[in-house]
């Protein structure tokens, strides 16, 4: 499971980088580095206890166990992937348009979404 998400995370990151190269003609390495640096910076200021509190408002919909229907499980996903996804909702990129999630993400500061990502990444996958 972890290996799968790690590889997904790499492929998403590379996808972002390659798309940016195609558009802007930048070096793929510098774009990737900039992205990773941004996620690392956000995660560096994360606070698990605050994340746990904020997560209360997520788990009303994102169940920790069972067969997901319509709403994905997020417990145990990699922190970088969660930061990247929430930023995509917040900034309207990568085709992330679900209005419920866009509405939630735009009210979260980078510190808050980093704290959520850290908390959920530390939860067991069931």
């Amino acid at each position, binding site marked *: 499971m972890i290996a799968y998400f790690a590889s997904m995370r790499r492929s998403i990151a590379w996808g972002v980088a390659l798309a940016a190269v195609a558009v802007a003609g930048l070096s793929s390495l510098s774009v990737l580095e900039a992205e990773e640096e941004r996620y690392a910076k956000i995660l560096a200021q994360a606070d698990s206890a605050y994340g746990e509190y904020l997560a209360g408002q997520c788990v009303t919909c994102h169940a920790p166990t069972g067969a997901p229907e319509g709403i994905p499980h997020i417990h145990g996903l990699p922190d970088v992937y969660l930061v990247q996804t929430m930023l995509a909702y917040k900034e309207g990129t990568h085709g992330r348009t679900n209005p*419920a999630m866009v509405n939630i993400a735009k009210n979260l500061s980078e510190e808050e979404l980093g704290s959520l990502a850290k908390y959920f990444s530390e939860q067991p996958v069931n």
Partner: protein
Amino acid sequence: MTKMTRRKFGALLATSAAASTLAAPAVLSAAKMRLVVIGGGPGGTTAARYVAKGSKDVSVTIIEPKQNFTTCFFSNLYLGGFRTLASITHSYGTLAGQYGVNMVHDVAVDVDRAAKTVKLGRGADVGYDRLVVSPGIEMLYDSIEGYSREASTMMPHAWQAGTQSAALKTQLEAMEDGGVVVVAPPPNPFRCPPGPYERICMIAHYLKANKPKSKIMVLDAKNKFSKQALFQEAWTNHYDGMIEWVPEEVSGGVKAVKADSMEVVMEDETVKAAVANIIPAQAAGIIAKRAGLTNDGGWCPIDPHSMRSKMDENVFVIGDASVASAMPKSGFSANSQAKVAANALLADLTGSKKFPAKFRNTCWSLVATDDGVKVGADYKGGDEKIEVTSKFISKTGEAADLRAQTSREANGWYDGITKDMFG
């Protein structure tokens, strides 16, 4: 279910070491802070579960007469044939077994706020250090002449799920094709603002398949309603010609009912109903009033940063009974408010950190098979009241695949919130 971290394990060891130096176990249990929760619905269960998993040093008791809880949310889907009652009925077993919540299946009949005790129907008193009041709604039967608890067996409100929902469904199944189903939505404020209109869709869904000559007459106490454009679009798209919505400015609203003859009386007209779903005006559950927590309008004012009662610093009111301003009265809102309250309760009782109040609500409505719509918002504790930070709503004319996805989301949410409530 609760995760034993190394830190918590250490804390428990420290507690038991301290306990061994005390004379009697009774001393230790008396030293535990006591949270008592009135009401085992979305607000009460969530508050109890979050405080129980947040600290082993607080004893948590829920006072709730029902042995099992049928959720009001999704009970419309039962009327439409999309859910069974069993699938929306939940046990308190995990809360008691895994979270150590003490379930007291009795009615809270009074609160002595000076003595900090709750009086039970069977006579005993339960003492508390902090009290959560989450009783839901009281039906104001007197708001419609001729309506009463007795009349509601013949003209169900079905606004508290369980036997009332079953009564309404049984009547729909027993009526003859070609009859008129009267739905009378209540005046504001009331539990679940989109609920009556989702219900109209679900009743129409049932009638279209089973009794297609029947009609639904909606005798509203209001002139507009939640997600109105979305519901009216659905009524045209899926149930054209079946539903007549009559606003208050046209009919004057329902003035009286005669349950014996199944008549619904307006200012200038009386309708003979095959089935009458009469939803009266509402107020906070009666225990909130008895406890002196309500305002003149019958609802409970709260501090928007904690859900603490403005009448008593040791009492928190959550869910439908509270004055949550911009937040609608919904199971989702109650669950959200419960987590803000739990954070504040743990800060009170254990000295843990209090975080800023953030709330959320989303209401999904199923309007037909694979056709769902939603509305939602984020909220924060404002200067005087709970305030909206941002909101969203489904659009009319959305593609079928998006609507199908929204209806699946509702199922995912049901799974999520019920696990968050009951563990």
